[in-house]
């Protein structure tokens, strides 16, 4: 199922909910530097067979994820097919328990599918060892968490350097890169502040700086605005948009926030382990 298929299906529902309408409205509006996958829905509806111009960086083929709670089997994801083009900014929505975070965890290499094949950035996630997967994550994925998850005893600059500790980058260059990342998120004047000295929005921007400092291909964001007020949320979303547009990062964002989903170029909906 292609992105356009998803969008066409979603948008064609007569009783589409408010956020879907908002999404459709947003998609209908012209955007600066539109990416192929960010084309207005009208185009998606008329050309549902059009494939992304850029190659898929994430490809799920019939993947499923099953958990066991005692003897009870829980199929959180079932036969899911999905392709996400390189350089896209996609939002994933759905009710609680629909499998969004599970899918995000699979794509981020935090988990492996119970069945099917999952290729991310050219690697088959299911076949990688734990060590290889950890190394791959450290090079390929940038994480943005709902609760920011900064280390409280470290300054912003030190927090951002964390992913680089796993590399052979010299200390001086680590610091330089972290400073650059903090400048990108507009926190050059907060480098030596600890998390408790920052506002929620600033903490999340430090989290984003940490997610980009090692120049990953993909950024996964799990409810990145879930803990923020509207203004801070908008700032964070603007930043994600900028990372997508200017730096070409592929962003996959799980969110419950329709306003956040609106900022993505592609919206996907998930329910009961299946893409709608």
């Amino acid at each position: 199922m292609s992105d356009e298929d998803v969008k066409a299906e979603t948008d064609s529902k007569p009783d589409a909910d408010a956020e879907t309408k908002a999404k459709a409205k947003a998609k209908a509006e012209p955007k600066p530097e539109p990416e192929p996958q960010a084309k207005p829905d009208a185009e998606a509806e008329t050309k549902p067979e059009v494939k992304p111009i850029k190659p898929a960086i994430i490809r799920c083929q019939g993947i499923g994820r099953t958990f066991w709670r005692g003897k009870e089997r829980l199929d959180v994801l079932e036969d899911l097919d999905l392709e996400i083009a390189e350089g896209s900014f996609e939002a994933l929505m759905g009710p609680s328990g629909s499998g969004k975070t599970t899918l995000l965890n699979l794509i981020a290499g935090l988990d492996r599918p119970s069945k099917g094949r999952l290729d991310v950035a050219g690697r088959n996630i299911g076949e990688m060892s734990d060590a290889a997967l950890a190394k791959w994550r450290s090079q390929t994925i940038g994480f943005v968490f709902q609760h920011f998850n900064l280390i409280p005893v470290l300054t912003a600059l030190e927090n951002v350097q964390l992913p680089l500790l796993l590399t052979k980058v010299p200390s001086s260059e680590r610091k330089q890169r972290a400073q650059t990342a903090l400048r990108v998120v507009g926190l050059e004047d907060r480098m030596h502040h600890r998390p408790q000295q920052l506002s929620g929005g600033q903490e999340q921007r430090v989290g984003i700086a940490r997610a980009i400092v090692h120049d990953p291909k993909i950024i996964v964001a799990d409810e990145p605005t879930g803990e923020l007020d509207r203004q801070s949320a908008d700032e964070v979303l603007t930043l994600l948009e900028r990372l997508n547009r200017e730096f070409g990062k592929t962003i996959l964002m799980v969110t419950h926030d329709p306003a956040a989903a609106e900022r993505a170029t592609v919206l996907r909906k998930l329910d009961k382990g299946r893409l709608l």
Partner: protein
Amino acid sequence: MTLVGLSIKNVSRNRLRAVLTVFGVAIALLAFVFIRTTLDAWTGGAEHAAQDRLGTMHKVTFTMDLPRTYFDELDGTRGSVPGVKAATYQSWFGAKHPVREQEFFATIAVDTDTFFQVYEDMEVPAEQLAAWKEDRQGAIIGEALAKQFGWSVGDDVTLVGTIYPGDWKFTIEGIYTAKRRAVDKSQFLFHWKYLNESMKEQAPARAERIGWMTTLIEGSARGAEVAQAIDARFEERDIQTRTMSERALNMEFLGSFGAILTALDVVSGVILVIMMLILGNTIAMSVRERTNEYGVLLALGFRPKHIALFVMGEGIAVGLLGGLVGLALAYPFINGMGRWIEDNMGSFFPYFQIPPHVAITSLALAMLLAGLAAVIPAYRASRLDVIDALRRIG
């Protein structure tokens, strides 16, 4: 910032807990160092005993006495037994201060003519020595004992006998100083003849008896051979002797306190084990609180071994800090107290200072045990499932 730096920074995360934990380790280490120093001082006193002096005592036990005539024979061996330079004899008197009877000091009846020839490491001004020899009730005391009881030359002193009952009157005729640290500076030395004459009157059966003999051997002589030759002299008598170096004699004396020493040894180990368990619990609590952070680190690509090393590193850092604080407290406390102990309990503890090997071992043990305490929390942290860990709200 480095991986090690991150581990160390974690120590200061909860400042109150960190300070309490470090002080807990420090106090445990202080107690450990104190006990080890006590043990070392106790046995060290014996080890520091003169090696060129031999003690000859009753073959059965040092609490049984010898005939006075044995000394004449031993003294006569000079020339016939190679290596004997000088000899003297003594009897353990065991008296106490009439009022401050809990304050122990050695009271020994000695042969005034020969004692200071053998104990060359004790020094008495010549005029005091001469006065002492002239006064049958004269006593020479150590400088520490003089300080302890405020006695000075010319003072009349009465002691209460325990082994030899009654009130015994003395006059302080001299105060000796020590040329070596290991010399007991709190002895009370008086004329054996004073004791013997009293015994002749009060208990004739106890007269003409001596506790032990001490021989100073030539520097080049081999102690074991001289000891063998001395014992050979009395081999065919009713009372046989056993001669050994002063060090061996002291060690044998210490052997009678074996149970106490063993108990102290065990207690010092128990203190460390308790410290380790408390530290382990603290580290485990800290790890539980940081589960979410470990999840984040794992997500970022850190491996389980990194997580384990963070926890271990944190434990070792706490051990090191606690150890250093413990030693920083121990040196002024124990060594300060040690100087008082050396002066006042010199017969048991001629040396009471923290030996370097005790300090180094304590620090190493603090780090090692803190590392061991962190093993289980580290293992559990390294086994965390990244997704489960991320779900825990930090």
